């Protein structure tokens, strides 16, 4: 310890030795001036290093300010730019019930987006949450199967969405014969967000203290009841976080849907066809935006669409948060 310390001292070592003979030959006495010299050195060292540390900490503080400012600025710039370009283009024409190439109405796409996202979540949330409950509460902790599922889910999370689109096209569209449809698209999206929901739910469940489980079991409650009543309620905010994340991916997805849901700008006709409207092709807002922007004729309308998309995402997030708070409050 002291050797390592001495190595870092700037003051040369001989100074310690030099003053020791003046005080006597006894080893025990020798130690004293050595200690004093060391203390001086220590003080100098501390003063130097605290000056340096102060400088470094000021620098780091400014760096974090800068990073925060850049992040906020980028976000504000993007949102501001979209609003500046998009809001003037928001005309009543864009909210016509029927889409024509004249009015490029986004209303059908808006309706399709909501239906598509809810359908995908309705499929993915029960499966994802159920899988996570199995992995955390039922499976033997750290078993090979659990590790395998976890690694698979992490890998799936990192796969580009266009590959999901390709799979959806080959499987749902072609092999199942569902065609380019709401159902194919929703199934593809469900598979895409399943790992997100599963992983976040898993994290949320693992964060619940074991004492809740012990408490439940200790009262003679079965595993199902313990999980449902003691563990799950505490994990709900975390699970909802995952659902919001998944919702964001569903609403913003283009690549996977181009291949599986198509680009027909119509509201799926549940009124006329009933459940068979699931096999209608439809375009979500993001796909709508992509086609408008690609065609190049309606760039301002594309910006207007993105404004609507932005508002939709904000509204959905807010709704989820309100739901989460409602659940929190009802517990109190």
């Amino acid at each position: 310890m002291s050797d390592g310390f001495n190595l870092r001292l700037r003051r040369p070592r001989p100074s310690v030795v030099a003053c020791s003979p003046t005080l006597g030959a006894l080893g025990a006495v020798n130690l004293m001036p050595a200690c004093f010299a060391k203390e001086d050195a220590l003080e100098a060292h501390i003063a130097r290093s605290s000056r340096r540390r102060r400088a470094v900490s000021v620098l780091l503080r400014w760096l974090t300010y800068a990073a925060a400012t850049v992040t906020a600025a980028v976000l504000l710039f993007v949102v501001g730019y979209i609003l500046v370009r998009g809001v003037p283009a928001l005309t009543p024409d864009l909210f016509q019930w029927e889409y024509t190439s004249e009015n490029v109405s986004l209303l059908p796409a808006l309706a399709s987006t909501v239906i598509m996202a809810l359908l995908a979540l309705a499929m993915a949330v029960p499966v994802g949450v159920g899988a996570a409950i199995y992995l955390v509460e039922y499976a033997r902790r750290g078993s090979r199967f659990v590790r395998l599922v976890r690694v698979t889910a992490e890998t799936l999370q990192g796969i580009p969405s266009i590959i999901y689109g390709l799979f959806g096209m080959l499987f749902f569209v072609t092999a199942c014969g569902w065609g380019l449809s709401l159902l194919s698209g929703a199934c593809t999206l469900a598979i895409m967000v399943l790992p997100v929901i599963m992983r976040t739910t898993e994290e949320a469940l693992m964060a619940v203290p074991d004492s809740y489980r012990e408490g439940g079991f200790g009262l003679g409650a079965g595993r199902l009841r313990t999980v449902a009543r003691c563990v799950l309620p505490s994990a709900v905010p975390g699970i909802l976080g995952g659902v919001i994340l998944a919702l964001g991916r569903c609403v913003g997805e283009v690549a996977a849907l181009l291949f599986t849901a198509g680009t027909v700008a119509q509201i799926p006709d549940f009124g006329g066809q009933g459940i068979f409207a699931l096999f209608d092709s439809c375009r979500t807002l993001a796909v709508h935006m992509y086609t408008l922007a690609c065609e190049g004729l309606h760039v301002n309308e594309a910006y207007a669409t993105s404004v609507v998309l932005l508002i939709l995402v904000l509204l959905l997030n807010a709704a989820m948060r309100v739901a989460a708070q409602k659940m929190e409050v009802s517990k109190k």
Partner: protein
Amino acid sequence: MTSFLKELANEMSVTAAAEVPGAAPAPAKMAVEHLNLFYGDFQGLRDVNLTFPENQVTALIGPSGCGKSTLLKTLNRMNDLVEGCRVEGSVLLDGADAYRTLDATDLRRRVGMVFQQPNPFPMSIYDNVAFGPRSHGVRAKADLDVIVEESLRAAAIWDELKDRLKKNALGLSGGQQQRLCIARALAVQPEVLLLDESTSALDPISTAKIEELIGQLKERYTVIMVTHNMLQALRISDKTAFFLLGEVVEAGDTDTIFSAPIDPRTADYVAGRFG
């Protein structure tokens, strides 16, 4: 055999009652016989033989890691939840084998447990106490109301909480939370109550309240408690068992263990010379 012993004890108590009140051996509510417990390769308990007499407080004392909490968790099979845990020998509740003939959830209803850290569920005070009865099929609101009130009264906390039953239990102080946990355990009408260092996370006043409570609870329940606090064991327990390295060194009447221990290691421990 046991009835013969009881008669013998009764006869003896007639003569001995004057000098040693309550000396009649209480019938054993729980017992462990030749209990060995392993966590993987590590042996946590070595050939433990103990009886826990009915309506008495038995204290398990010993230094950290000596196996006393492990034994407690074996009594209501909470060790089942620990991976790689293996139990040999037998745990008896009223003579029935807890690991072979009794169902784990039924055993845990009859042998309730209060943990070291207060662990109320994140729900209302009422729902916390009603959790156990609901798990066992009590649905009627009127029945639950009665159970909740009686349990909170038994845990000596009814007067403090009766006006805020719908409030979240996490808003209570640590001592109140722990007494709520005791009430919660009592709500399923257990026969045995296990206390795992249940006062070690509490302040002295809350501790005193819970100790007083334990003294009352033994009228109706058999209490088995783990404690690090030897004065606490001396204050409230009738029987004491001293553990060292997974073995029972000495077990018997609390007074004997503390005043005239036979084993020198027990004498050292209760005198505070190690542990």
